[in-house]
């Protein structure tokens, strides 16, 4: 096979308009906050410090929640939906206008390849605001709701109040959009806590809110680590908590919300099975497998991290897969040719190493293509484990890295059994040319999103979320709106 040489094609780093320091965004203003604490956010591809970012403490959280409450009561709650909609359309447009800047900034702060931030993260974030903008003045049409018998139409769905939202580092801007857009469309105000290692794009989004002249307090952005997030979640004046992140932290948050009237949605971890039958179009399946686990370095909660291959095509598929992995280009996230960028943090790299070492120690066979890693930064080569049993840690635990565990099956029933043998249930993949088998499988896989003959597709109109310990509630579509509205007899505070 010929080796293709690529000339470097880097995006200009200046496009990101990186500043030395960033404040938090409270009540429409950027401020240093009440404490002296700050964090340094690092480019994971080089380990250089990108910027210093103010960290929110308890009193900042109090201020932000108070600003959000005030904005909810005086401006955003009473505002007609058609006016709220126009603010959201403005935000969507401004994200589009500043898309190149956001993409470069995202790749710098997160380590993901520019082609992904440019073609997936940023356009989808804009699309989310655009989609939910259109809902803001149509809430009465969204749900049938309880309509008391003989009393005509029931009340329109009402917002919940102040939403406390905590998001992860894998899709920093996109997750901010997933959280803010439906909450704002429904008439709530927001206190958003971006991830410790990737606060920058959410702060630029706050600046975009300013440019859109969003009333002060409607959106507040509080950078910080776990204790900032915990303060947001635990705040007594927060009516709704939305969290995306690990199952472990999700359980803590669900415990914290116990005994309160807070509404809760959780989008947690996954260990998705990607099931390939012997009649699958193997070329397409290989592309889907690669996209499933190596997209965003495998830092994807719905990643197809368990490949289940029917025995009769195992050898052929593995050969094709390994050949394809040999062509992946790992390196500078800002290079437009890069397929695999940097691991987001030293801590995440340590976790991936620990689990892959456990995979070897438990007897699975490890393979990576020839692949040189840069000297500085956090890197991990695309890795495939074969001979994996269901009991292995690499088949059970979420690795959240570019590591694929391969298992085999003989019958469709066995595929279902193995695919469902996990406490998670976020996503699954099916590869076969037989339509009836797709639907048979889709019905039996216990997962919130099932991709058939494709993988890792997202759209604002399409509900996304988990079964079992992958969480509850949906983001996207009409169902995503429900997470921010009271549509039933449950009292809102």
């Amino acid at each position, binding site marked *: 096979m010929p080796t293709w040489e690529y000339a470097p094609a880097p995006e200009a780093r200046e496009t990101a308009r990186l500043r030395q320091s960033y404040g938090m965004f409270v009540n429409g203003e950027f401020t240093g906050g009440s404490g002296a604490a700050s964090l340094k956010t690092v480019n994971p591809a080089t380990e250089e410090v990108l910027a210093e970012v103010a960290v929110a403490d308890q009193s900042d959280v109090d201020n932000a929640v108070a600003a959000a409450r005030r904005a909810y009561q005086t401006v955003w709650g009473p505002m007609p939906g058609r006016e709220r909609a126009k603010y959201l359309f403005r935000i969507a447009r401004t994200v589009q206008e500043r898309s190149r800047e956001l993409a470069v900034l995202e790749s710098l702060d997160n380590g993901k390849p520019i082609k992904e931030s440019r073609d997936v993260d940023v356009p989808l974030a804009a699309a989310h605001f655009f989609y939910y903008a259109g809902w803001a003045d149509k809430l009465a049409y969204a749900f049938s709701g*309880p309509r008391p018998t003989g009393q005509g139409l029931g009340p329109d769905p009402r917002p919940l109040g102040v939403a406390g939202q905590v998001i992860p580092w894998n899709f920093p801007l996109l997750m901010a959009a997933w959280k803010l857009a439906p909450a704002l469309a429904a008439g709530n105000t927001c206190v958003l806590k971006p991830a410790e290692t990737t606060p920058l794009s959410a702060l630029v989004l706050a600046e975009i809110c300013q440019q859109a002249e969003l009333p002060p307090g409607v959106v507040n952005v509080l950078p910080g680590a776990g204790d900032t997030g915990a303060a947001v979640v635990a705040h007594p004046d927060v009516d709704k908590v939305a969290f995306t992140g690990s199952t472990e932290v999700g359980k803590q948050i669900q*415990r914290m919300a116990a005994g309160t009237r807070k509404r809760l949605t959780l989008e947690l971890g996954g260990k998705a099975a990607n099931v390939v039958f012997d009649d699958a179009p193997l070329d397409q399946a290989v592309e889907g497998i690669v996209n499933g686990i190596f997209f965003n370095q495998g830092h994807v909660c719905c990643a197809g991290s368990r490949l289940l291959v029917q025995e009769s095509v195992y050898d052929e598929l593995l050969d094709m897969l390994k050949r394809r992995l040999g062509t992946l280009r790992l390196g500078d996230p800002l290079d437009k040719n890069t397929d695999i960028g940097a691991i987001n943090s030293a801590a995440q790299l340590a976790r991936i190493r620990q689990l892959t070492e456990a995979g070897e120690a438990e007897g699975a066979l490890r393979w990576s293509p020839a692949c040189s890693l840069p000297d500085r930064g956090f890197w991990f080569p695309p890795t495939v484990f074969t001979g994996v049993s269901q009991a292995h840690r690499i088949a059970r635990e979420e690795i959240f890295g570019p590591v694929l565990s391969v298992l085999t099956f003989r019958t469709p029933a066995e595929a279902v059994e193995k695919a469902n043998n996990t*406490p998670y249930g976020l996503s699954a993949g099916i590869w076969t040319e037989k339509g009836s088998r797709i639907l048979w499988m889709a019905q039996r896989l216990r997962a919130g999103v099932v991709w058939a003959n*494709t993988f890792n597709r997202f*759209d604002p109109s399409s*509900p996304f979320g988990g079964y079992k310990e992958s969480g509850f509630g949906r983001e996207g579509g009409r169902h995503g709106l429900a997470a921010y509205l009271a549509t039933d007899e449950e009292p809102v505070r």
Partner: protein
Amino acid sequence: MTEPEPRLAVRKTYKLYLDGGFPRSESGRSYEVSTPDGQFLANAAQASRKDARDAVRAARKAVAGWSGATAYNRGQVLYRVAEVLEGRRAQFVAEVAASEGLTTAAAESRVDAAVDRWVWYAGWTDKIASVFGATNPVAGPYFDFSLPEPTGVVAVLAPQRSSLLGLVSVVAPVIAGGNTGVLLASEERPLPAITLGEVLATSDLPAGVVNVLTGRTAELAPWLASHRDVNGIDLCGAPPELATELERTAADTVKRVLRAPYGGEEPDWTTDPGTRRLTAFLEIKTVWHPMGI
């Protein structure tokens, strides 16, 4: 005319309803059930942790069959339940009157409302997907749809006061959605729940779809809240002092939780129930497929 010989009534032994059968508690325990003014009614089985686990196992075993049945078939079965409920009207009126200390007329209206509520939910089974599902206009060459599916095994702490209408209002939505259930009856008013088990056993409802436990709520509820094979829990009948701890326990397995009623007050079961109890134990599954030739 001669007076008829006095006849001693044949009393019923109130047992558990597990996996389609009526066992006593494996623990051999029972407890006295009385009317609100203290008259002895029956000795009910006092279920143990082991009984609760057996009930969960039975419910899990029944998931595939019940969730895999067509929505039409589930509707037929649930409507059959309503028919058999109606046939036992007199017995339920007597038990509700005795359990809740109501006049016969008041008990009759509760029982009638309970039967009508069951019919209402029976009609939901094949409407759920159209009302709560969607096709999603994604920006690409894909057909994308979302449909509701049952959550799985749901534990239900029945309301403590409304022994039949409240009971039906929490059980029917769980199984109408295709879930299977472990029902923990009202501690002091369990008799209508046990009789409901007898109705279910004779109504074509497959064994294990509903399992009825009687006993001490505070003893059994924590085992149901922590059980790893229970996917959701309705805390309606949780003792107020335990509700928060049960919710916390349920978080260890990310259970779907219907919280205990606000302020500890049982809801007014006679009002329109809405769809909240139905949707609480449904999952939305989204399926994507490319379009092409």
